[in-house]
């Protein structure tokens, strides 16, 4: 492992995680640089990108097509158009072309949709009933978390509460239920219920547009690793940092297609951006906060076991104890199960070699995912440092101190006892 070099003009940090502060100051990641860690995070990025290719497509399908269907029983039965929908950052027309692969649904995803877990071609309804499908409930749980932690996206939420938004939503609701007096009657009686549902659908669109970027980023990282062109953890982190900047200005919007007509509920002209209204709120809502998962542990709110302030919620992947979280049916496990279907061979071999082999594979996938998300969070921290602070080699000591203050403030969030930052420093953490 390369030894991080300390900046010559600052004394050593006295932070509890001084080693990690120094590593960040040397352009490193919170995750130690080792071939083993690199293999784990790249392997899991690839396994994550395939279901994510479904998540973003289906989130947009629901936001743009299913819309206010009162009985959305088939919302996970994505249309052919949305499986073929070109990813804006892959294929010949990608701008920028983040992944050199094709822009429609990934071949492994198509194969899984056709064959399910059963490994046989059956009608989709059969795979669905046998649960041989992508767990869209995970994507919806992420959307719910972003929607619920409303303080982290103030500008976007202010627009959702604006008269312009209400007028746009009203137009779409009336068009969607045109000729349906029962639903229009309900809308007249309970307009806020419908509006609230449309706001939630705007978050479906927000998250779909966010993940449309991340899937090709992860596919490209996996390809670069397979080609021997991504050789260290900091290189992997830097690829993410560059990806974040390259698409930072992507518009976040919400449009609905009703009877062939497009209704703009959040127009691109509102100026919402991928970085500020999607990526940063996503990281805060999902990596850090989320909410306690039902069935994993009993919390007594009256004994203050659940924080009074939502900002104090720390139930995200960076804090998760993967053992209780590995329970059936809860969002993180749904994701682990999705990723398990698309693991590269080198990760499967690694899991088989560990003490319980494949018996605890969901747990092992979870721990690997945790490592990989500490690297993604490191990329976000370094990207924010680039955007808001100073270059790592800035000659001005005051600027270097500002960088250090920024890094220490970020790492302070991992002083909490449940944080897994300490654990991911050790190879023995499985």
């Amino acid at each position, binding site marked *: 492992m390369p030894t991080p070099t300390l900046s010559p003009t600052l004394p050593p940090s006295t932070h509890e995680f001084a080693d990690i502060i120094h590593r960040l100051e040397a352009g490193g990641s919170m995750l130690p640089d080792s071939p083993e860690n690199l293999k784990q995070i790249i392997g899991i990025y690839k396994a994550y990108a395939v279901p994510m290719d479904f998540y973003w497509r289906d989130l947009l399908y629901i936001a743009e097509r299913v819309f206010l269907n009162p009985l959305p029983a088939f919302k996970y039965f994505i249309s052919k158009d949305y499986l073929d929908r070109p990813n804006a950052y892959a294929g010949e027309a990608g701008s920028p072309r983040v992944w050199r692969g094709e822009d429609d649904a990934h071949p492994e995803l198509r194969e899984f949709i056709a064959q399910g877990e059963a490994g046989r071609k059956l009608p989709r309804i059969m795979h669905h009933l046998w649960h041989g499908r992508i767990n869209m409930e995970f994507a919806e749980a992420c959307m719910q978390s972003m929607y619920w932690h409303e303080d982290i996206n103030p500008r976007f939420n202010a627009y959702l509460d604006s008269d312009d938004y209400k007028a746009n939503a009203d137009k779409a609701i009336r068009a969607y239920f045109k000729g349906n007096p029962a639903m229009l009657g309900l809308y007249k009686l309970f307009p806020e219920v419908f509006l609230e549902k449309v706001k939630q659908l705007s978050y479906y669109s927000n998250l779909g547009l966010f993940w449309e970027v991340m899937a090709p980023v992860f596919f490209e990282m996996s390809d670069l690793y397979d080609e021997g062109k991504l050789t260290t953890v900091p290189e992997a982190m830097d690829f993410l940092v*560059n990806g974040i900047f390259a698409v930072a200005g992507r518009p976040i919007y919400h449009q609905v297609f009703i009877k062939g007509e497009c209704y703009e509920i959040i127009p691109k002209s509102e100026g919402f951006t991928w970085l500020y209204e999607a990526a940063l709120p996503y990281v805060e809502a999902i990596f850090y906060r989320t909410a306690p998962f039902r069935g994993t542990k009993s919390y007594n709110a009256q004994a203050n076991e659940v924080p009074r302030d939502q900002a104090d919620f720390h139930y995200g992947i960076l804090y998760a104890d993967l053992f209780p979280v590995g329970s059936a049916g809860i969002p993180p496990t749904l994701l682990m199960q999705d990723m398990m279907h698309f693991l590269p061979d080198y990760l499967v071999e690694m899991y088989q070699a560990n003490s319980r082999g494949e018996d605890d594979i969901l747990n092992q996938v979870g721990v690997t995912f945790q490592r990989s998300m500490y690297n993604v969070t490191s990329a976000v921290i370094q990207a924010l440092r680039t955007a808001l602070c100073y270059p790592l080699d800035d000659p001005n000591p005051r600027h270097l101190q500002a960088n250090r203050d920024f890094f220490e403030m970020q790492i302070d969030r991992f002083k909490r006892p449940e944080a897994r930052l300490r654990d991911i420093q050790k190879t023995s953490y499985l």
Partner: protein
Amino acid sequence: MANIVEIALGNKDFSTLVAAVQAADLVEALQSPGPFTVFAPVNDAFAKLPPGTVQTLVENPPQLARILKFHVVAGRWTQADLKAQTQLDSLEGSPIPVRCHADGGDDFEVKNATVVAADIEASNGIIHVIDTVILMG
């Protein structure tokens, strides 16, 4: 006296900024009476951004306009005026921290940018030239 846009057009160090202002359709706004204070990044400031950042913004004018508006403040704020200020409200809506002679030194910084040329007078405001594109957050 030339206005803010005319001054930028006349200086080749601002060619990227001028192209961005044109792409974002902000030329007319910056030619209006104002007055405005503009923190104008030089070409090298845009070049420091990671690859692809500027291109994506130029392809999306409303998003680009938002970033550019973060560099503009209502009113004519000279370097001397800013000594007594710790932050200004940008036209984008987010605050811009300023640090002007804070420790009795000669520093004049706007967020994480350093002012490399201050107090360039225009008919509709004032320009401070900065070495880094500043971003909200």
